[in-house]
């Protein structure tokens, strides 16, 4: 540590340049992870926030809400299955909300209508206004992002292409589905909207898209067996089954993976070149008795100081960027995510310094005599 810090203080410019590169890498990693997180939140936060453990879909629906249709009469049946604590039906459909009879662009907003039983465990906590009520079928609870679109409490809006209109009775937070704001409606009202066309419910009684289950020890295979014509998956599998979700996340993850791999090489090469420069110096120190351990510690602690500094600056810059990012940008930083990627970056930097450590152990103290070919 002693030599490491002394050297940092002595050749500030050299190390400043490395820090700048490392900061840029860290910055990009954090921003990408924030974007990835923001996108997946936008795509599925409603699903992710639900306090459900397992989801029952129609058999052959590839764990996708939009491909699955079940009868709601199977809910009590599902509830009786082993290890199931509670079951609740859910339906979803995409729609467009229109403010009045306007034909202006900004007065049409895409929404996701999520049908649930009022009072069931699927209902999110209302921040403002009233929760859903079976007595008020057209009263809906919507995501706060609709406020930015100009919607207020007790506003009534029309659904494009239907004769239905809904009234906002409450606001909830962080509820988006398929990249648009979620609008929670009582499930009967959802059925009216989703199956307006005769026959679109395939003749099922009380149709729903999926049945959500609560229960920690549920055996998915057992449920699928006992409930004919169904597939049971975990909630996270259901999230993966959402259209485009895997692809979207895969893209971001691939970029992150490449970025991390590149940073490992870039940093490794930098540290290696710096070590190579000092071969002679290390030879001298070995000649006067420095052990491999002493010199390796110097390198590793130097890389550690550089990495921690760079990562911290990177984090600061990321939060700074987040503060000035446009509101519509799907960017969501989570402390846990920042910590995880900080640790990954630190580990990568430390591992890449090991190449240099290996080099050090091979330096011959005879170099100090300066006459060895």
């Amino acid at each position, binding site marked *: 540590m*002693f030599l490491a810090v002394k050297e940092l203080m002595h050749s500030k410019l050299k190390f400043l340049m490395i820090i700048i590169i490392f900061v840029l890498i860290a910055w990009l990693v954090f921003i990408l992870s924030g974007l990835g997180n923001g996108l997946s939140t936008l795509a599925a936060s409603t699903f992710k926030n639900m306090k459900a453990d397992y989801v029952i879909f129609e058999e052959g629906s590839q764990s996708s809400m939009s491909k699955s249709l079940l009868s709601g009469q199977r809910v009590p049946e599902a509830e009786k299955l082993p290890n199931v604590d509670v079951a609740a039906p859910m339906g979803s459909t995409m729609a467009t909300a229109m403010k009045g009879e306007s034909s202006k662009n900004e007065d049409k907003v895409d929404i996701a209508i999520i049908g649930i039983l009022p009072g069931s465990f699927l209902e999110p906590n209302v921040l403002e206004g009233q929760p859903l009520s079976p007595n008020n079928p057209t009263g809906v609870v919507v995501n706060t992002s609709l406020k930015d679109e100009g919607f207020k409490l007790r506003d009534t809006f029309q659904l494009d292409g239907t004769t239905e209109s809904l009234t906002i009775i409450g606001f909830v937070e962080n509820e988006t589905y398929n990249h648009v704001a979620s609008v929670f409606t009582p499930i009967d009202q959802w059925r009216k909207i989703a199956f307006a066309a005769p026959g679109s419910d395939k003749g099922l009684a009380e149709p729903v898209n999926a049945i959500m289950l609560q229960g920690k020890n549920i055996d998915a295979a057992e449920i699928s067996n006992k409930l004919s014509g169904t597939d049971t998956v975990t909630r996270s599998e259901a999230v993966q089954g959402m259209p485009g979700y895997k692809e979207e996340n895969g893209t971001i993850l691939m970029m992150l993976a490449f970025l991390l791999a590149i940073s490992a090489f870039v940093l490794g090469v930098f540290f290696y070149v710096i070590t190579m420069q000092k071969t002679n110096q290390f030879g001298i120190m*070995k000649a*006067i008795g420095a052990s491999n351990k002493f010199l390796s510690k110097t390198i590793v602690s130097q890389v550690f100081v550089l990495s921690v500094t760079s990562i911290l600056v990177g984090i600061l810059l990321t939060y700074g960027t987040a503060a000035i990012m446009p509101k519509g940008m799907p960017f969501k930083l989570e402390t846990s995510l920042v910590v995880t990627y900080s640790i990954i970056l630190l580990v990568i930097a430390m591992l890449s310094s090991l190449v240099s450590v290996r080099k050090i152990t091979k330096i011959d103290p*005879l170099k*100090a005599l*300066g006459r060895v070919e």
Partner: protein
Amino acid sequence: MTKGLQMKEVTMIYGEGSNQMKALDHVSLSVEPGEFAAVVGPSGSGKSTFLSIAGAMLKASEGEVRLNGNLISTLTEKQLSTIRLKEIGFIMQSSNLVPYLHVLDQLLVVKRMSGTINKEDQQFAMKLLEELGLGQKLRKFPEELSGGEKQRTAIARALMNDPNLILADEPTASLDTKRAHEVVSLMAQEVKSRQKAAIMVTHDERMLAYCDKVYRMNDGILTLAATS
């Protein structure tokens, strides 16, 4: 138990088969504490090899090397590193100081290599530097020192761990006559007052007056040339 450095019948052979090259041919020598020996000889005569073996950096093909009575020719790499740290002080050709450490730290880093440093080490280092006329230069970096000052720092660094053996490799190579005399006379003085065994490998015939014994190296054969 004998003190100082003893080399007995040390032979060093480089290469294999018909390419064999004898760098040292049955070299024997003994340097007692308080004795300042010089080894002179043309380049290629085996001086470097001799110094590397005496300095525990290279293992001889044959023969025994004893430092302070202990056989060091059979030790492992790691043990040799400890011997270099604890028992041997090295003074190398100029500018072999660590560029980013100031004069005082150059000495203290030697202590840090073997663990932590305390107040006494610090005082010892300051006293040593004072003695060598560097009292005003404690916080100077090598780039701010003259050639003579650098070599004096190197002498202080070699003495820092209180070693039994001091090895100097062409310490006057880049110094003018005045500074060379200054540096070597200081070395001789420290060797006497601290009772160290010391060997200086040099080209510089002017410096031999400071030495107690002068050996000549020729084609790997070491002969005693003069004793004062």
